């Protein structure tokens, strides 16, 4: 868990955004979705998740409304705003560039030759 939390630190917001891109969810569902999608590789720490949600709501990346859960309880459901959607695509592109770059260094078994 220690290594995964480090990984999460900068990317938690992006993961939440991506999760919500599939549809509105409440906090617990967001955590569950991330965990199951990554086959429990990325476990979201609740202590970070909720402050992150409130922070993102304040910044207008996500918005919340009170809805009913499957068990007919009042729950706070988050959804992506237009701003959040835009931010997600920026972050995704950045992540991709980053991952490609890191992959270029880490994956090849031979030193690349320069012409």
């Amino acid at each position, binding site marked *: 868990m220690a290594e995964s939390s480090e990984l999460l630190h900068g990317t938690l917001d992006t993961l939440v955004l991506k999760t919500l891109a599939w549809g509105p969810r409440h*906090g617990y569902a967001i955590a569950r979705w991330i965990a199951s999608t990554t086959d429990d590789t990325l476990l979201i720490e609740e202590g970070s998740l*909720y402050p992150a949600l409130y922070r993102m709501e304040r910044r207008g990346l996500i918005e919340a409304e009170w809805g009913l859960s499957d068990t007919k309880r009042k729950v706070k459901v988050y959804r992506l705003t237009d701003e959040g959607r835009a931010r997600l695509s920026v972050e995704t592109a950045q992540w991709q560039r980053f991952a490609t770059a890191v992959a270029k260094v880490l994956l090849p078994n031979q030193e690349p030759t320069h012409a």
Partner: protein
Amino acid sequence: MPELGRFARELRARLWKPAVEDEVASEMAYHMEMLEQDLVAQGVSPADARAQARARFGSVDRVAAECVAEGEARDTERRRFEWRAELSQDLRQGWRQLANAPRFAFVTISTLAVGLGAATIIYAIAHAVMLRPLPFPDADRLLLISERNPSGQEFAISESNFLDWQARTTSFSSAAIFEARRMAMRTERGPEGVRGAVATHTLFPTLGVGAALGRTFLPEEDRRGGDVRVAVISHGLWERQFSSDRGIVGRSIDLDGRSHRIVGVMPAGFDFPGRTDVWLPLVPIPEYPRGDHRNEGVARLKAGVTMSQARQELEGVAAQLATEYEDNRGWSAAVRPFREWYVSPQLNARMLVLLSTVALLLGMACVNVANLLLARAATREREMAVRAALGAGRWRMVRQLLTESLLLSAIGAAGGIALAAALVPIIRATGSEAIPRLAGLVIDWRVLAVAIPICVGTGVLFGLAPAARLLRGARAGDRVHDLLRSGTRVADAGRSRQALIVMSVAFATILLVGAGLVGTSFRRLMSVDPGFVPSRVVVANVTLPDSAYDEERAIVYVEEATRRLRALPGVRAAGATNLVPFSGGNTAMDFAAAERATAEKEGYRSGSWRVVTPGYFQTVGIPLLRGRAFSGEDRFREDTNDATDRVVIVNDLLADAAWPGRDPIGQRLALSNGATMTVIGVVGATRHLTLDSLPRPTMYFAHAQFPWKSMWFTVTTEGDPTQVGAAMRRELQAMDGTLPVTELQPMETLVRLQAAEPRLTAMVFGIFAVAALVLVAVGLYGIVAYSVSQRTREIGVSMALGAAPAQVVRQVMSSGLRLGALGVAIGGVLSLGVAGALRSILYDTQPTEVGTYAIVGFVLLAVTVAASAVPAWRAARLDPVQALRSS
């Protein structure tokens, strides 16, 4: 416009909005529960599941606190954002409203600009003249002190009495006497007249102001035998004459032919007793004749002493002195607040009247705008109903209306302040010569600090009218439906508008009555016969310094000067006097018929006196009623050196007082200084001081018998008096190039300046009256035209049924006239109540003069008729078919 889904969501979010703490707590509780459930589903025992869930969550309190903080910040920001968004939406909406109704916008905004502009400028004047603190520390501890003559009038102080006051009173921490004096300053360009003052060294410490450069007078500099040839100069003179030379102290200045060492420069803005450029020490002498009253006095109260205590003590001392010295018999002392030096009780009354008047005008503007807004609101009822139906809250709509009216008042205020700022230089230029401290008229933050809240306040005030109606309408239930269906107006809309119009007419009545009274008073003041004829007279002052002119030479100079002036082309007559009427000075002496004069000086009366040359009466048009004028033979006879040879001319008031029913010619007149002289002529009475001051008994002495060294020369011109001025100056200058010729001006200027305050008041009232009439006309026209447009159908029906156009006209006009007449009646009654406040500024005019009220009533009703005639005429020309088809 956001899509409906989001709109609905926002609406729901607003409906159910828990406190942030509850929000966070319930969210976390739910999360834990779900976590536990999942763990139990995986086979963990419920107790363990709870423990594990707890452990995973970490410190709930810390997380919750973090979330609450974020959540609260979120809510604050959101509220602020929404508020701003709504405000800008309202502003945009308001702006669109104005742009869509340019005529409404123009009338409203210009009404407000006139009202607020008038209020701003009057407040600025009041601030400059009256409200602004005096430029002296603790000015409320300063007093004006003076003597009081046996007839109870305040009078100048004799220096010997002042010395005794100083020695015997304890109420004052310091006291000073001073006398304004014209001086001739030698410059490279020739002699220049400067206004100066002689003052005891205590003047500066009493006022509490020190020199900016150098020092003020030392105690030994106003003592006999001390180094008294010193001068303190004003900041203005220092800049003008000495190019702001910082090394000025110790250099000399040549005044009245004597050299004075400059010891100090006063700070900029220090100006006392008034427009003063040079101060010289006044050396009070204990042996000085106590009957010679020349000086004015100022004193500073000791800490803890009140003005009435000081008055009591000073009157006590004066009473002692009255028994100790023959010359003081019957004299007392007087004390006034220092502020009256600048703001006379009359000026104070004038400013208060102007302030109340402008408040009235502003009130009218507000009422009119409220009326316009109400009319506008009626036409917007559909729009409002639609907004209400779409879910806009009542307060939200009220806020929008208020925002719109604030927008209006902001634009109106900007226009008004611009108007006021444009008027400032004009008012400053026309009034500052005659009205103290008006020169400091500016529109600065201190004025705006009052003006802007007034603007905002009025904006809210008149914005409340339509808003209140909206609220009332909403309370009355689902009128929304009706409104949407038919677009009819709310029944009572007209009534509140009618009430406002009546109010506006009533205000206008009060204003016009005030203007009428002030105007009548001013006209009467201007048509007062002052007893002399100022037209075609030019005056100029020359002061002969003691250093170069003894009495003999002064007589020669004045005789020669008048002879030369008379010889000038275009000059019909020339003369001279020690004080020309309306020049701001006065002199007094007690007199009695010699046969009734007693040693105790009982039965003496106070009179004015003037020293004149033989040609004086003729030049200024004072008529000789009996006997003869002075001639060249009336002079001091060296051979006998007998004071009883002197002759006097008196005015008819004095003659009647001294010798009622008898021929005064040849009678002997006794003066309080012991002299007696023979009356040789009687002249008409003149007003010496102001147009509204009554003439006083006056005696005229011959200059050749009572030589005086500060003389006003007067010449009567054949044509335009301004043509002769330059020649007059040249001629006087040619006689003695070291003497400045000051105060050279047409005599009419003196008269005009003297009437500056009443003129300014009348002018302002006149402008206000015109503005009030325009507002009334616009307001009445608006409401009558509106009611016609509302009743188009009804009028159409009655016309279709055979009503003659004349009948329609009568009907419409009578509705306007009813409102006008009601307003005039209410306003007239109110005026009777408040016009009394004008009494102190009216001349020879009663606040209840029927004529004024009648004229005002007539004018207002005429305006009413004119304002209703246009819509009535339009109504009469309605085509019944068209009218019935409309709406």
